[in-house]
């Protein structure tokens, strides 16, 4: 879309302002290099660049700053918090991990901490901004290009840092079926953003695909928003998410169909219904089990893939680890990748959840600060964080990330033996 004549604006996330002119644009727009050239490009030097202001990036920035480092924190959204700003449910864990606190409250607490540090000039917050690429490595110096949007125009910054922490989160997975491009088919994250951030109901009657924690939690939030959830379908023979989340839905009379999936979505211009089908023990559709269900919304909660494109561009060693849900950067206990000073934390290091993402963030923050020579005493603290992380992963639901992290560690050892 074109806004005020500026092409390639992502209007779905750009702020709405009075008297703006929004137009659809042809497929190709002019290369905006003339505007970049006329804008003064600023060069900024900083100790640590943190990419992504979700739970991992926020904790990384706060931790690194507390140990004396200077930080630039970049996020493409207008607000910090990442996925936390939509998590209206109470978090699990212990007192230490703010158990019993709702995700939205944790986001506010972390935001306040970052804003305090910003006032003191310790953190520079670049919101509505995107790290567009990696340009140069010179010894301990890394050069990145960052675009900051303002009034739909972009300004290019050159950021030089001694360490970088990638906390870029993850992308939602899509599912292949006829009609999946019809308006009304959403990812669970989009539904949460509409409901819990913008206060907009995505539809009236929803079919949820996926009974992992995301599918179960978003279904419950849909009910809280006064939207009917017809059913949850799950291809696996068992519910993947926590029983307590499933129980909350069931006692609100929402059925969960395990060994069921979506075959197709039908409708003229928008979703009018879906065909649900039973799966046999080989996950193949059972002929004759098709059921047509009227609905106006199909919500997909079928997993996430780590966002790692910038990491690939930096040139760190990547491997496909199924338990991490995709290609991930090999990293050690300090969350450092195979390039010195380049760290990774949270879902972009392997899909997990917010509590562990926050601890991973803290580990990267303290590790990067140590690498740069700040606060030698912080070593003990780093050890403590690593132990906390192991403790959280010790149960049955921690098995998958545990396996993922062990594989990553082994691959790293093998390559550098």
């Amino acid at each position, binding site marked *: 879309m074109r806004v005020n004549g500026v092409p390639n604006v992502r209007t779905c996330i750009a702020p709405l302002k009075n008297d703006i002119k929004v137009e659809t644009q042809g497929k190709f727009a002019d290369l905006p290099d003339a505007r970049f050239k006329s804008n003064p490009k600023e060069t900024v030097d900083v100790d640590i660049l943190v990419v992504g202001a979700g739970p991992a990036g926020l904790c990384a920035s706060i931790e690194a700053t507390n140990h004396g480092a200077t930080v630039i924190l970049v996020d493409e959204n207008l607000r910090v918090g990442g996925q936390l700003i939509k998590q209206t449910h109470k978090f*699990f864990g212990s007192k230490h991990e703010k*158990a019993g606190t709702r995700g939205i409250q944790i986001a506010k607490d972390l935001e306040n901490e970052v804003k305090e540090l910003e006032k003191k000039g310790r953190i520079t917050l670049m919101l509505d901004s995107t790290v567009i690429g990696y340009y140069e490595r010179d010894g301990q110096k890394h050069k990145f290009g960052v675009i900051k949007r303002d009034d739909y125009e972009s300004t290019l910054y050159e950021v030089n840092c001694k360490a970088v922490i990638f906390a870029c989160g993850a992308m939602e997975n899509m599912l292949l079926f006829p009609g999946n491009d019809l308006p009304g088919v959403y990812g669970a994250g989009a539904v949460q953003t509409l409901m819990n951030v913008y206060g907009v109901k995505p539809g009236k009657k929803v079919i949820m695909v996926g009974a992992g924690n995301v599918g179960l939690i978003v279904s419950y939030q849909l009910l809280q928003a006064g939207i009917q959830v017809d059913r949850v379908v799950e291809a696996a023979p068992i519910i993947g998410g926590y029983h*307590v989340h*499933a*129980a909350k839905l069931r006692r609100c009379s929402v059925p969960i169909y395990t060994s069921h999936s979506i075959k197709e979505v039908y409708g003229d211009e928008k979703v009018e219904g879906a065909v649900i089908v039973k799966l046999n023990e080989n996950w193949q559709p059972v002929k004759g089990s098709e059921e047509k269900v009227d609905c106006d919304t199909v919500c997909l909660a079928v997993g996430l893939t780590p966002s790692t494109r910038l990491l690939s561009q930096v040139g760190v060693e990547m491997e496909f680890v199924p338990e991490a849900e995709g290609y991930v950067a090999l990293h050690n206990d300090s969350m450092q990748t195979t390039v010195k000073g380049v760290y990774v934390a949270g879902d972009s290091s392997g899909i997990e959840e917010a509590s562990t993402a926050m601890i991973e963030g803290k580990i990267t923050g303290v590790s990067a600060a140590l690498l740069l020579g700040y606060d030698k005493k912080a070593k003990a603290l780093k050890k403590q964080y690593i132990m906390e992380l192991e403790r959280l992963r*010790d149960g049955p*639901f921690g098995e998958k990330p545990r396996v993922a992290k062990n594989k990553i560690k082994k691959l790293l050892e093998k390559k550098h033996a």
Partner: protein
Amino acid sequence: MPNYEKTGVLSKKDLKLPSKKQLERGVAVIECVQGIPCNPCVDSCPVNAISMKDINALPIADYDKCTGCGKCIGICPGLAIFLIKIKDNRALITLQYEFLPIPEVGSKVKALDREGNVVDNAIVKRVVKKGKTMVITVEASEDLAMDIRNIRVNS
């Protein structure tokens, strides 16, 4: 494989049921059957009636130690603890409720079981606001004390 992994619904066989005597005093029934890393219920109990080997273990309620104070009800992030009491041949069920509208004390609501079936009409006896969470006590038929786990407010 336990059936609740398929259905999301616990049966009484999955739970440690309190005795009649314990129910008359009022006890916290914990419907948390999976080892998830979580322990605020343990910290909330003033008489150490809830124990856990480690953070990934299952919480175990000692019905003899439990005084039925209800502190753990509003704490549980999984909304999985219910205070159950039998008084004057009626069941008093205390649960977390996270929907609008918030029912008024004295009003009638539908009592739902673990599958969301309406099994009784209940009377709202108490509404306590704990942050954004409502902890609500309803009164219903005695024999449904271990079945009623949700309410629906008539709108």
